[in-house]
């Protein structure tokens, strides 16, 4: 793989580690494994830097430090110099031969991740490599494991299955507006809890007034179903002719073989053209770094699905690619207690979604735009 790689590989001496089979695990070429003197030095360096940066603010908690700050110009400069010191320290740490393996490995992973290509263009080996890097990176940062893999599959890379085209049907008569789907979606897909990002919107519409999304309420809180109202959900419709894909200037979003419209979060530049192009409000933007409490993180992840996003990238419903490519239903379908949500393989003539399309009177939203959504509505 290294021969035809598209970028220069940073070698921080980790490869030597695989050669040494002895008890020495630090990967050093010279000196003893337990040379505390040097490590202490770098630790002292950090301590000095931290002292310079926070100093007397040690006693204050995080909230006070952020919100209760009075600072003159001198302290501001002092702080700035301190952060620069830490930054410089980090660089020396990654380049010197005395820092520990974890730091080196982290630096190497960051390097490789920085220069990797678009997921769409990767070979399966390259996909596997980036998945491994991301899993290892998470482990190094938090000390916990995530699984970005298929549990029962022979290989971890989950590409689109053959003879599968995913489609969705939504029964307007059955939806009662419970919003169990919304909660399940947030939990499944590791959406930002801070901004309360949600992919699904349930619109409460007044009977007899038709679809008026501007008059409908998508954030109601009263007992449901309310009298004289009906409910309909919208999310990403995974259009067969997706305008969001068309406008993306860097091809960070595309349609997979099984019909899922997906995003490479590491390739997205955050221009939000796709958000503007989507006629269904299906896309969401991370205005801040997404925050999910560690104990609430869904650790079964997919590169194109629910892995933790970063600040400044787009995300949206992926029909739970991490679930559906293992044969499960999306989290919203599983959570809905009314059976209003139907998911399946459009290419399989025996699937229930096909029966719905052929036997119920189905329609799609804004059909005249030619976006060809794979999300149909129907009534009893």
């Amino acid at each position, binding site marked *: 793989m290294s021969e035809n790689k598209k970028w220069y590989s940073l070698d921080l001496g980790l490869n030597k580690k695989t050669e040494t089979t002895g008890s020495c695990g630090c990967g050093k070429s010279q000196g003893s494994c337990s040379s505390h003197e040097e490590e202490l030095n770098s630790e002292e360096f950090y301590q000095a830097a931290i002292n310079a940066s926070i100093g007397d603010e040690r006693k204050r908690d995080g909230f006070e430090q952020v919100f209760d700050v009075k600072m003159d110009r001198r302290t501001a400069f002092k702080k700035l110099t301190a952060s620069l010191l830490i930054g410089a320290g980090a660089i020396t740490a990654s380049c010197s031969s005395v820092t520990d393996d974890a730091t080196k490995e982290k630096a190497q992973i960051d390097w490789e991740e920085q220069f990797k290509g678009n997921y769409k263009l990767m070979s399966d080996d390259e996909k596997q490599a980036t998945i491994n890097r991301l899993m290892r990176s998470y482990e190094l940062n938090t000390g916990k494991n995530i699984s970005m893999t298929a549990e029962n599959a022979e290989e971890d890379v989950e590409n689109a299955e053959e*003879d599968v085209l995913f489609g969705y049907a939504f029964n307007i008569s*059955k939806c009662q507006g419970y919003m169990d789907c919304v909660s399940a979606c947030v939990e499944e897909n590791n959406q930002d809890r801070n901004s*309360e990002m949600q992919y699904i919107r349930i619109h409460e519409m007044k009977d007899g007034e038709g679809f008026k999304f501007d008059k409908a309420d998508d954030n109601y809180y009263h007992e449901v179903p309310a009298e004289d109202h009906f409910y309909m959900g919208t999310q990403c419709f995974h259009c*067969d002719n997706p305008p969001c894909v068309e406008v993306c200037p860097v091809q960070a979003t595309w349609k997979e073989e099984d019909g899922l419209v997906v995003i490479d979060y590491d390739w997205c530049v955050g221009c939000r053209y796709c958000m503007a192009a989507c006629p269904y409000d299906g896309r969401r933007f991370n205005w801040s770094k997404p925050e999910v409490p560690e104990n609430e993180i869904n650790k079964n992840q997919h590169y194109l699905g629910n892995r933790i996003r970063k600040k400044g990238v787009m995300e949206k419903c992926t029909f739970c690619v991490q679930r559906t490519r293992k044969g499960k239903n999306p989290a919203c379908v599983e959570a809905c207690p009314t059976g209003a949500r139907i998911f399946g393989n459009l290419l399989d003539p025996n699937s229930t979604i096909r029966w719905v399309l052929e036997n119920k009177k189905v329609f799609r939203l804004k059909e005249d735009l030619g976006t060809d959504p794979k999300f149909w509505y129907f009534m009893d």
Partner: protein
Amino acid sequence: MKNKNPIFYLILLLVLTLNSCKEKDEYHSVIEKIKAEQKPYHGKLTSETLLAGTDLIEITEGEHTFLIPERKGQIKSFACTECHNSSLSQMKSLVGKKAHWEIQLYHAPDYIMNCATCHNGEDMNSLNSLTGQSINLDLSYKVCAQCHSSQFEDWKGGAHGKKLAGWTPPRASMTCVNCHDPHKPSFDTRWPSNFNIKKALERKEGLDH
């Protein structure tokens, strides 16, 4: 140059015309694509592992064959005849232990339905069709289907009712009584499980749009 120009434009036109036709495997709509590429799914994905641990029975109704959860094993005091060891008319009395006192019927007006519409006092282990024939308790949907024929059609096809497991075959659907209490089949109102405070605040402040 003057001679070359028309040839150049001709070639350009030819290239453009050839390229304007989409590739052969492109369709004008997703429905067209589905019709052209449809094929019963026999891939490696299956719901069998997801369904493991659930007691299911296979039923065939019309052209549909699928799985539904078994029922008798889920009823705590089955078999009913362990208590109902004589016919209901004999057990009914003002004295003695009362049973099922909490069950009230909110299904249809009492000139249409009473207990005996579905239950047979002489054979409590089975259900009762409108013509008095016995129906296996595991196949209770047959009782419901006597009146609710449109719901039955939708359920068979998969448009009504929740599915068990995933989208992959074999198909497993919940049966009527898994969601509806047959004595009170409608649902009460309840509170939604979600309220987006951030969205509400943003709208209040006029930040939304």
